[in-house]
């Protein structure tokens, strides 16, 4: 196999990345402008209905909405390249500021959730594969199937009903108690229920994946050879089987990042947790163009980046992929 120059390899990837982001921004821009709805509502609220035509034209002119879409896009792109993404119509502030105020919360929730999911899935999947078809495995599988069926929002409601409304152990909304934004303990208390929801709603999907991949791996012939050379069951599992599935698990988890972060959206809504999720929904609903653009591009970057990481993991770490490419060319 001919070895590729790493500079060229990453150069290509970088080019693909920038190109995809550009393409994404064009698509989002056009779709959002062409979709029905009145952006002025988000800026002026209910006043829009009372506006005279002249006022409307003036307002649209002020927001740069009366030009053809392509000109608007070029304007936006020029500003964006200088780091100016415009103002949010609703919050009347620079969109970067608006997002900055919320992104920490989402990252905290999503990040911790991701970590939990990543480790727990690996653990549960391995435990299940180890005890294949035994009672423990069956129990975990049953429980997993049930949790994966429960709609997130309903589980949130039930947990709130139990822990917040009836038992009054945990708070039911917000990221912190009003007036105490720096109290760590309080923040953690607020995080517990949302975190449980985020983790349970994704966990089984990945754990089950691990379980199935491991079971496939355990049926491979090399396991017999490893066994016949005198390795213990445990070391075959960890040194051979688990190791072999890790690359594909990593790449899967890379793709899962946007899913998990995006999945926090429902949780944020139910728990009135101030995060990016609610923001994106509002911006789409009320045609807050600039905010929507930046949010879409940010999530687009995340998606593309994660996809690329997954691809690189696949291509660089797993010798089997290399072998496959060698055989096909």
């Amino acid at each position: 196999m001919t070895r590729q120059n790493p500079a060229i390899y990453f150069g290509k990837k970088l080019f693909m990345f920038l190109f995809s982001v550009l393409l994404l921004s064009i698509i989002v821009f056009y779709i959002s402008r062409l979709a029905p709805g009145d952006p002025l509502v988000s800026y002026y609220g209910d006043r829009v209905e009372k506006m005279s035509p002249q006022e409307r034209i003036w307002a649209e002119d002020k927001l740069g909405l009366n030009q053809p879409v392509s000109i608007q896009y070029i304007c936006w792109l020029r500003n964006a390249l200088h780091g100016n993404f415009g103002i949010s119509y609703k919050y009347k502030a620079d969109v970067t500021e608006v997002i900055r105020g919320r992104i920490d919360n989402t990252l905290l929730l999503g990040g911790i959730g991701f970590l939990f999911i990543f480790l727990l899935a690996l653990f549960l999947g391995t435990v299940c594969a180890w005890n294949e078809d035994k009672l423990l495995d069956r129990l975990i599988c049953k429980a997993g199937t049930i949790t994966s069926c429960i709609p997130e929002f309903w589980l949130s409601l039930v947990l709130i009903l139990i822990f917040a409304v009836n038992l009054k152990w945990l708070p039911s909304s917000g990221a912190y108690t009003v007036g105490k934004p720096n109290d760590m303990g309080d923040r953690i208390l607020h995080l517990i229920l949302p975190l449980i929801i985020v983790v349970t709603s994704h966990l089984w999907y990945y754990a089950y994946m691990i379980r199935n991949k491991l079971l496939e791996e355990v049926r491979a012939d090399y396991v017999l050879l490893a066994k016949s050379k005198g390795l213990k069951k445990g070391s075959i599992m960890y040194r051979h089987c688990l190791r072999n599935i890790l690359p594909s698990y990593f790449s899967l988890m890379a793709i899962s990042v946007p899913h998990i972060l995006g999945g926090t959206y429902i949780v944020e809504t139910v728990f009135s947790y101030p995060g990016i999720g609610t923001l994106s929904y509002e911006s789409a609903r009320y045609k807050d163009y600039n905010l929507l653009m930046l949010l879409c591009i940010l999530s687009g970057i995340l998606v593309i980046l994660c996809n690329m990481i997954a691809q690189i993991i696949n291509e660089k770490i797993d010798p089997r992929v290399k072998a496959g490419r060698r055989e096909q060319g």
Partner: protein
Amino acid sequence: MNTSFEIAGIKQVPKEEPELKKKWYYGKPVFAIFFLFFIVISCLACDLIMPKDPTYMDLSNFNQSPNSEFLFGTDTMGRDIFSMIWSGGRISLWIGIFSAIISTFLGILFGAVSGSAPQWADTLLMRLTEILLSVPGLLMVLLIQAVLGKANVLSISFVIGITSWMSIAKVVRIEVRQLRNSEYVIASKCMGGSFFHILWNHLTPNFISSIMFMVVMNIRSAIIAESTLSFMGIGLPIETISWGSMLSLSEKALLTNSWWIILIPGGFLLATLLCITSLGNYLRRNVNQKNSNL
């Protein structure tokens, strides 16, 4: 002296088939099928079951806990939850099936095109699918629905349908690729089998089993998506009763600790989803009976 030592030569020995002790329902999700059947029939025949008009807001009897008049209680707007369950279930199931049809159709179309296209087109189409797949599905539905504005049953099925075809497309593509190179298809081609002959006799039977699971699972995720959307207030309006829109009242219910408004519709929703899932898992259960080497 002993005739048993005569040469008998080759004789056919009647083969004793070991009797299978397993009952016919062994390994089949009997309970799930019965329950699903029960729900579907009841929802279809809801006009006969419902004791009250599910849309009638009885303001003198709002937020009643379950009692003999209102079996499952009433919601915050005074509607009878027992009646709502059946008429709402009809809408939820209908949305699930309708969007599953849309997504299956799109998935098969896209997968078949990608699977039979030349290499470069296949790569392009699959990259697109992967990108779409890595965008959180619900978020995509939310954004599209938010842009479209007010929803009705058809529009919501449509939105859910066009955002959930990707995984079917992937499966179909792999299946098509494999089948295209399988020897019995080559053999059939050699014998002069036309495209439609091969499609009908060879591809379809092999296809259906691998797709059924995905279709069932799509029904499930469509029902989840609808209920989530309606709960958020961007799906069906409160007046259109579905299990999701019934739950959209639950924030008010939380304030008054009216558990039945949350637990009863949700319980029915969950039970239905579980049944669908076990049905799907049964369809997927593969024939591969290879044993573990560990």
